[in-house]
């Protein structure tokens, strides 16, 4: 017997994707040029709310290079096309039609009003300046509470209200826990806080781009999207193009973070213009357009009440949210707060819980998924509350958490929100994090700095999080009125020479699927890592998929791969037995070889593939193919968890916050590729930290976005980020055969409260118990001044 090769899963394989990306041989959508292709530019409303009185495109039509200038009247004369929203969270949810181009009214600054098609991008842009639009001002409503007030101006007059939906979960009614009002009124201690989740901009690095070619048998759409499959279905439904006449391709996609989970008016516009003119068209946005019109994230007001006993047992949690939808509903926007609804109770055994969320329209860019989508908001609120409760009770915040969290021997555990957490070990992750962080040492230093009145104060922030990801069990999604399922598909094709093509329905945009999927299949089939090609993102060879978001690719799509591989082996086995002239029951498969048990007779999977290709001598009635498909629909989410500890230094003279050390110990179950996992954590941390300290989308009183470029929306650079210390514990998930959990969002979900808790901890003794995000120097300084007063 030869020694079995070391398993691929678990190896820190360098990425297959890198070669093209580091040499500039990439396939971004904007790189595509087709013969006769026209360039599109969109005229956008400078007004946040106005009636369109008239649009005069005549001068623009006469500009050099201009082929067409089109408005809503040209593209959708009957006003029938509306952008899809796939998540009607309540039966009575108000859902205004979002047109491809505004016809009679604009509802946020940046809404498209007209489109120019020209021979070059420069000529298209030139022509925009010659389109005359007359607007009549309408009153603007930007603040959610103002929008809900009696007599408020309405974003959509015909809806009669700015309230889109109210969604409620109550543990008393659901039978998953007690009555929260009772718990609060009986409580020895109760605390109420209001937190604001500022508006954020996903800010993927590659601006969105779409190329549409109407000249072939299928209308081909290339787009910088996270969701080529969903885009295909939605385009068919939205425009009435028969689905089989549509091909959607997501080539190399430069990041998404939820920002590219969208069906864009510009994608529909490009398709309509291409069909109308009979020519390929390209739309590539500028960064300024991306900031203004790509959907934003977060933007919630959270009113939280927590109740507890004097000795620190939490007895109830009540959450009232206002969620700013912006001017329209995004593809999954209404459901984003619901993804948080099940997470406010986090890792704690809370006996009574109520969650209510009101989705509100305002005259701003719509909001939708952004890394974590609902779960960062929930985690922030509960982790901030745990710190506040600890302060109120005079307890160490870690001790309070430990008192309330689910112990490792209590899994599986059904929470007050009705989810069953399959596994976890919060004690282990926390213990490891404390060691790496030198928790006790830093606490001593903090005391010393307080005692000496050091102008630079030290704070320690904690976040012991969990999250639900691996979206998602289709039945659960159905029960939440989501418009689709949560399965994922995979196909494996054994090529005659023994090489393998893997087709996945999840669509990577930086995650490293080509590498990780190769590792999984290599182990399953016993073929070399190098012999596997992973294909994704083109409906022509990958017709089925649910795409990439919600940290689902590995837990769901990876499992589909395993199932498909098992089917390949099932199909190969009788052929191998036939070749070895033995019974199927005597076969065993290891290391890529079928062996007759107890003998050295064996045949490799590659040889079986060739034999099936030749098909000269197969078992009677055998269907000559090893190729296999599988679809996996998880029965439960995966629940990564971990403990993040952040030490910040707060310069009390200027208010500047500097992260001194950041330790996180995450449990994402079994790890396929530790390098990729670590990279996901790093990137997630950076985005979560950026919410805590830097980023905020701001509108002025007229509804103009004043942070519309990278010069004023503060994405951190390398110089603004600390070095992270990361480690893992490994509690395998029981909800999928690989034992894996999602990792894409964990860092973002966990880190924001760790940082803010740490800032508050640094200055709590100065009378500060909250600072609104981002904790800018001015806000921190003002909080200290306020605390001192």
């Amino acid at each position, binding site marked *: 017997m030869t020694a079995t090769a070391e398993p691929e899963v678990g190896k820190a394989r360098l990425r297959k994707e890198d070669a093209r990306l580091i040499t500039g041989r990439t396939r971004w959508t904007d790189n595509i040029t087709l013969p006769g292709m026209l360039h599109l530019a969109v005229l956008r409303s400078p007004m946040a709310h106005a009636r369109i009185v008239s649009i005069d495109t005549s001068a623009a039509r006469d500009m050099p290079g201009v082929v067409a200038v089109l408005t809503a009247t040209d593209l959708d004369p009957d006003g029938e096309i509306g952008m899809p929203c796939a998540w009607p969270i309540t039966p009575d949810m108000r859902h205004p039609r979002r047109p491809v181009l505004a016809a009679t009214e604009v509802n946020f600054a940046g809404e498209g009003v007209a489109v120019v098609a020209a021979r070059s991008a420069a000529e298209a842009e030139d022509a925009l300046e010659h389109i005359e639009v007359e607007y009549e001002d309408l009153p603007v409503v930007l603040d959610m509470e103002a929008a809900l007030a009696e007599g408020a101006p309405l974003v959509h007059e015909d809806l009669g209200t700015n309230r889109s939906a109210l969604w409620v979960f109550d543990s008393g009614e659901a039978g998953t826990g007690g009555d929260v009002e009772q718990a609060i009124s009986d409580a020895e201690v109760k605390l109420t806080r209001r937190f604001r989740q500022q508006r954020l901009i996903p800010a993927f690095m590659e601006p969105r781009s779409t190329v549409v070619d109407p000249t072939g048998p299928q209308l081909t759409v290339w787009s910088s999207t996270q969701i080529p499959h969903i885009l295909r279905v939605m385009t068919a439904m939205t425009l009435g193009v028969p689905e089989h006449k549509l091909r959607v391709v997501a080539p190399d996609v430069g990041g998404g973070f939820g920002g590219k989970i969208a069906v864009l008016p510009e994608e529909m516009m490009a398709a309509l213009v291409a069909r109308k003119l009979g020519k390929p068209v390209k739309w590539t946005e500028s960064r300024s357009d991306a900031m203004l019109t790509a959907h934003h994230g977060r933007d919630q007001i959270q009113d939280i009440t927590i109740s507890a006993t004097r000795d620190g047992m939490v007895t109830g949690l009540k959450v009232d949210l206002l969620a700013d939808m912006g001017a329209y509903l995004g593809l999954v926007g209404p459901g984003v707060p619901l993804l948080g609804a099940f997470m406010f109770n986090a890792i704690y055994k809370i006996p009574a819980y109520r969650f209510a969320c009101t989705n509100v329209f305002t005259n701003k860019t719509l909001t939708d998924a952004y890394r974590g989508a609902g779960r960062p908001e929930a985690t922030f609120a509960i982790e901030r509350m745990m710190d506040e409760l600890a302060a109120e009770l005079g307890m160490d915040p870690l001790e309070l958490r430990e008192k309330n969290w689910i112990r490792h021997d209590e899994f599986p555990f059904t929470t007050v929100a009705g989810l069953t957490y399959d596994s976890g070990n919060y004690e282990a992750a926390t213990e490891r994090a404390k060691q790496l962080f030198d928790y006790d040492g830093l606490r001593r230093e903090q005391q010393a700095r307080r005692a000496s009145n050091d102008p630079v104060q030290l704070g320690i922030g904690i976040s012991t999080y969990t999250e639900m990801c691996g979206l998602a069990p289709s039945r659960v999604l159905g029960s939440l009125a989501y418009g689709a399922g949560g399965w994922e598909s995979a196909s494996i094709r054994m090529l005659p020479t023994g090489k393998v093509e893997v087709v996945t329905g999840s669509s990577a945009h930086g995650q490293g699927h080509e590498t990780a999927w190769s590792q999984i299949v290599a182990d399953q089939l016993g073929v070399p890592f190098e012999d596997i090609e992973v294909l994704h993102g083109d409906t022509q060879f990958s017709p089925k998929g649910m795409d990439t978001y919600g940290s689902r690719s590995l837990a769901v799509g990876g499992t589909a791969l395993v199932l498909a591989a098992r089917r390949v082996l099932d199909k190969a086995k009788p052929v191998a037995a036939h070749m070895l002239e033995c019974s199927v029951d005597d076969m065993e498969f290891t290391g890529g070889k079928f062996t007759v048990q107890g003998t050295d007779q064996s045949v490799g999977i590659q040889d079986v593939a060739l034999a099936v290709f030749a098909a000269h001598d197969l078992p009677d009635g055998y269907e000559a193919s090893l190729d296999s498909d599988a679809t996996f629909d998880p029965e439960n989410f995966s629940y990564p968890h971990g403990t993040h500890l952040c030490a910040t230094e707060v310069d009390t003279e200027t208010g500047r916050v500097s992260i001194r050390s950041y330790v996180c110990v995450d449990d994402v179950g079994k790890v396929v590729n530790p390098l990729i996992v670590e990279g996901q954590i790093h990137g997630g941390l950076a985005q979560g930290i950026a919410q805590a300290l830097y980023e905020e989308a701001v509108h002025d009183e007229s509804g103009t976005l004043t942070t519309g470029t990278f010069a004023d929306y503060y994405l951190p*650079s390398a110089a603004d980020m600390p070095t992270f210390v990361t480690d893992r514990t490994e509690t395998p998930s029981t909800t999928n055969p690989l034992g894996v959990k999602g990792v894409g969002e964990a860092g973002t979900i966990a880190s924001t409260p760790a940082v803010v808790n740490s800032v508050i901890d640094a200055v709590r003794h100065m009378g500060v118990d909250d600072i609104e995000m981002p904790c800018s120097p001015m806000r921190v300084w003002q909080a200290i001044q306020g605390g001192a007063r």
Partner: protein
Amino acid sequence: MRITVSVDGTKYTDDVEPRMLLVHYLRERLGKTGTVVGCDTSNCGACTVHLDGHSVKSCSVLAVQADGCEVTTVEGLARDGRMHPVQQAFHDNHALQCGFCTPGMIMQAIDLLADDPDPDENAVRHGLEGNLCRCTGYQNIVRAVRDAASKMAPGAGPVAEQVSDSEITSRAPSHTGGGS
């Protein structure tokens, strides 16, 4: 306007509108789509190339300003089919995810190492402050640049020689001449 520019070792002569940005010239006229545009305000650095041996943001240089100059893009780094040590280090250290910022990041990292062959972590972080990445949190990028530095250091072996060919010698004249 007629310009002559040497890009990745090939000389090109073209008529361009004065308003054409260098990055658009590279992408649209020369097909050098390895260099990308990430913003409008010269913040993101995704479009970074070398102009006469110094890193610049090619979205903030007019093509006509590059007349008579030498441009190196990420597509011109490899030598004899071997990647530049900084490219190799980005691969070895998992310093990229979606890869959109990567060409600019690599070009800036090479520039940084030309000025400071052995930068500490802080120097790397500040040397890259004109380049934004949304995926990596920068940690592996910093690691990659320092890894490349150690491999490119004098005496580090044949790999290092590639760099002196492609980058350091081309910088020398521009130090005294002051760029373009």
